Each structure stands twice: as C-alpha cells, then as structure tokens.
C-alpha cells in the first residue's frame, strides 16, 4: 500500500465543513491528548485554533523538551550542482531560467567540504538540481565518499530515485533523505510542474518510502507553502509523516516548513503563509508527531528563528550558502534567498544565550 491510498480517502472530504464544526472544547481536548489522531491534528490546524495558539505553543514546547531536551541539532547544506531537467514555476533552478549553471568537480567538493568543516558542524545535506544526466548515481556516490571524510552524517536532497539506487547510496555512506512533495494537491501539482521528470506526482509521493525501504535512518519531508491550500497541505504533510513513521518504525522522521516569500522570482504565490499560521502548523506537527524533527532553515529571518527555537524547533542550519560553491567562490545564483544571513558562530552563540545546547554531532559513521 502506498500513501496515495490514504491520500485518496480525503478526495471528497469537506475540510470547510469540518472546520465549521470545530469548537473550542474539541481544540482543548486535542491539546490535552497524549496520542493525537488525524482529527485532533485537523482541530489544531483549524482557523479557530488560532485563538488558542499560546496554549498550543506551551504544550508543543513541553512535548519538545520531554523528547529532545534543551537541544538543537545543527546542519549545513552544500549545493553541488544547479543543473535541472525539470521546469517548475516556483524554483530558481528551473531549466527555463537563464542562470549560470555549475556542477562542482570532486576537487571542488573537497575544497567546499573542508571549508564547511571549519564550523565544527558534523551534519551535512548535499543538494543538486534534479538532473539525472548531469549528476548521475556514480557522481552522487563519489560526492558522498568525499563528504564522509569530513562529516559524520550525510543526507541528500536530489532527484527521486529507485529503491535500488538508494541502496547503492546507503552503502556509499548516505544516512538521510530529504524530499519535498512541494504540493499534495494533484491539480495544482501538475499546474506548477510543467515539464520534466518532476511531473510524475505518484513517483515523487512514494520517494520517501523507497528511501525508508533502502535503509536511510532519517527521512525529511514537507510541503512548500505558497502553492496549495495552507491547512490541507499541512494536514497531508503531517499525515504523510505519520504514515511513514507508523510503517517504518526504525526511521527518524523530520518535517520542514519551507514557504515562498513574496520577493522570490516571478512566481506569484497562492496565498502567503503568514507567521501566525507558520507557528500554528509547526505546533500542530509537534503535537501530532511528538518525536519528529522540525527543521527551520535560513529561509526564515534570524529573529523569527530565534523565537521558534523556544517553541518546538529541533534542527537549524546555520551560516548556510545556497549557491553552488557558495562557501568558497560563489558565482551562481542561489536556489532561494537567505533571510538569516548570520555566520554559523553567531547563530550558535545565540542558541547558547537562549539557553539551548547546540548539537554539532549526533551521529557516528559506523
């Protein structure tokens, strides 16, 4: 069974009607529950739950401290290529965009890795545009082997692959997989993914599951907010993570909450995710999935990130560069604009000042 079967069950579900029937008592009951079902999750995502956001945030904080303590995991992204064979309306790497294209040579990967390692952070996420031709499996394996010399945990965010290819990467040393569905609404999915491999909705939807089957220990998923209906997209993201964590008990699930901001490219977002809704979604994720990592990237500004740390974030990037070769000699355009431009030391100092323990290393290469 695929997550698609679960998703399809909601095809005729009337979210509007459901939200109309949600009342304060239902929201309070859902906050207090130990194990939330999908309707509790919906109650917390409902427009009415915004009136009780402080209460929800307090509980989310309490659950986070019980599960993670006063700690925050650190990681850094490394962009090794921005070639892409798909045309996606919202993305800076889209093949239609006339940007400077670059793929790092293995020597350049090593130079970047050495530079990033100076921060002391031992977790790395390496990213490419989605081009199987320019960045084939062998190249990804070679990059992994170099990164493993400098980092104890290596995760990938590349084009979706088969379980067999993921197994090869797992053997090469990849520990984790990040893949975003971007938008769970099928019609909208097809309208923003114009051409290329990424147009295959179902293949993408099953990608995290193939990764879990291949043995990756961390799986990170999420919707890109600004394309579909906010509540529905958050609901399906949470449901997807729950499905994976129920089925693959051994996997550590993580959720990101990327959002398109107004200033980005030519793409006109379908409704901006505002800060209040962002916090609401984050807290609902936490209460629905108490042990899920919640990852906040430098897409968000420093002040907002510092505030989220106190609620229920568990994973931060710090001092990220989103250009190919960005840590040493960037020439390319970034995939997205960074809002939190602080260097990693500054972020780490701030984490400590706020009374949290920055975690540089939380895995050992074995």
């Amino acid at each position: 069974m695929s997550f698609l079967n679960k998703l399809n069950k909601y095809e005729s579900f009337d979210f509007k009607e459901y939200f109309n029937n949600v009342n304060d008592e239902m929201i309070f009951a859902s906050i207090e529950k130990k194990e939330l079902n999908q309707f509790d999750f919906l109650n917390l995502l409902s427009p009415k739950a915004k009136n009780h956001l402080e209460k929800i945030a307090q509980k989310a904080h309490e659950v986070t401290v019980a599960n993670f303590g006063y700690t925050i995991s650190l990681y850094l992204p490394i962009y090794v290529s921005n070639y892409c064979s798909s045309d996606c309306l919202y993305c800076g790497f889209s093949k239609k965009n006339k940007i400077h294209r670059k793929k790092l040579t293995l020597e350049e990967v090593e130079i970047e890795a050495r530079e990033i390692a100076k921060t002391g952070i031992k977790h790395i996420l390496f990213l490419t545009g989605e081009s199987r031709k320019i960045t084939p499996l062998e190249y990804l394996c070679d990059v992994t082997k170099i990164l493993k010399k400098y980092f104890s945990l290596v995760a990938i965010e590349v084009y979706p692959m088969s379980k067999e290819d993921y197994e090869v990467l797992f053997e090469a040393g990849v520990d984790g997989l990040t893949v975003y569905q971007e938008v769970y609404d099928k019609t909208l999915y097809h309208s923003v993914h114009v051409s290329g491999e990424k147009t295959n909705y179902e293949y993408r939807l099953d990608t995290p599951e193939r990764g879990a089957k291949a043995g990756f220990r961390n799986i990170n998923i999420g919707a890109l907010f600004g394309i579909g209906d906010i509540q529905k997209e958050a609901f399906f993201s949470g449901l997807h993570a729950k499905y994976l964590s129920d089925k693959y008990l051994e996997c550590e699930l993580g959720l990101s909450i990327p959002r398109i901001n107004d200033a980005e490219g030519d793409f006109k977002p379908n409704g901006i995710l505002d800060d209040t809704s962002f916090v609401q979604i984050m807290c609902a994720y936490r209460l629905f999935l108490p042990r899920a990592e919640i990852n906040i990237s430098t897409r968000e500004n420093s002040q907002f990130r510092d505030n989220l740390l106190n609620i229920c974030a568990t994973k931060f990037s710090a001092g990220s560069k989103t250009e190919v070769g960005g840590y040493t000699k960037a020439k390319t355009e970034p995939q997205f604009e960074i809002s939190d431009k602080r260097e990693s030391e500054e972020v780490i100092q701030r984490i400590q000042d706020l009374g949290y323990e920055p975690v540089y290393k939380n895995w050992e290469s074995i």
Partner: protein
Amino acid sequence: MLKIGDKEFSSRLLSGTGKFRDKNDIKGMLERCGSQIITIALRRVNLENPQDNILNYIPKNITLLPNTSGARNAKEAVRIANIARESGCGNFIKIEVIHDAKYLMPDNEETVKATEILAKDGFTVLPYISPDIVTCKKLEDAGASAVMPLGSPIGSNAGLQTKHLIEMIINNSFVPVIVDAGIGLPSHAVQAMEMGADGVLINTAIATAQNPALAAHAFALAIKAGRMAYLAKIEKQKSYANASSPLTGFLNL
C-alpha cells in the same frame, strides 16, 4: 555496595548527559548527587572538537557508561561499542538497540545477540530492555553484567508503568537490576528501590529540571531512602485484617 562487572559503587543513582541546556551543568550535577556512573551517547562524542566533546565535561573519577543510541540492530550496536572502546570510553557499555523511533522501545531480540558478542569480547555489558523476564534469563546466559528494564518509555517521566514486570525480574535475577527510563519523580525512584531494584538511571527528569543539580540531589536521597526501606524489610500494607479466630488454630502449629 553496587557491584557491576569488576567495579563497586556506593551510589545507586546512574545519571546521563543528554538533554541538558548547558554541558557545564553536568559537573555540578554530579558533585551534588554523588552519582558515580554516567551514560553518554557515543554518537554525541566529538573527539575533534574539544569544546563540543562531552567527555571533557565529565570529571575523571566518574565511570563512563557509553551507550549505543542510534543502533538499529545488533551489528550496529557492536560496531558502536567498539568505537566507544577505541575512543577511550572504557569497558562498560550500555546496549541500546532501538528499532522504533516513535516510542524508542528497545529490540530485546537484537539486544541479546549484541550482548553475547560484546560480553565474549570482554565488555561489561548493561543491556537496556523492555521488561521481560525471559529476555533477562537469556541475557544472563549471554554474559550481561546487569539488566536495565524500562519503567516507561524514554523521556515520558511516566514512572513505573511496568511495575509488575520489573518485580518479576528483580525477584529472579542473578545480576543487578537497574531501572532505566521513565523515572520522572523521586517518588518513582523510591518505589523502584523499595521493590529491591539495585539502582536507577535518571537522565531526562534531571536534565530538563529548572535546577538540574537540586533535582539530582532529590533523586539521590530518594534512592537512598528506598534502599534503606528495602533493607529494613518494612512490613508492607496488608489488604486483610489479622483474623481474631484463626482458620488453622486447630492444627496446634
């Protein structure tokens, strides 16, 4: 004295290094509560970065109990145990094989396998398990130096939800029984010690308290009180009254 492997300890409180706001709090916590054994996740040991390296925050007179947190099967646990020994963490190893990232429940079957391999290899093995007496007997045979059944899931602070199962283990064990996980309050720790547990491991409740050192002290006192009560053989509450006309009086016993 609590004897584990070839070492003896006067304190029956085992502590942990996870979840603290500040690694610098660990030293004060240890001084205040007198704990002599502390568990550390090998995955958090960072030899390359002295400032981040958890080992640099633990006084030298404390016995390290590295754990295999992150291992999903026996093979990974054995690998991590060996890295721990090579990193200078000593011979003690707490086996944590977790195949469930949701509740963090241990995999008893894989834990038995790892115990057998590591005990043969000269480790002092303390396996963390779901409280199951049959598993405990297998662990004794495999060479475990203690068993560590859980009181309730890690981080839950829910107390001794597995009381009856742990009681069975305590009453039949040939190795020390250390209750690990879920102990959220000193009153939970007292309960475990009154039952005859040999020790209690507490991490989350101490690390996430507003004042970790004070919390650790409270747990240490509770563990001492529980131990004394156990040794004093305080009469348990009776659910029946002393019969005024005995049923077996005619036997002239």
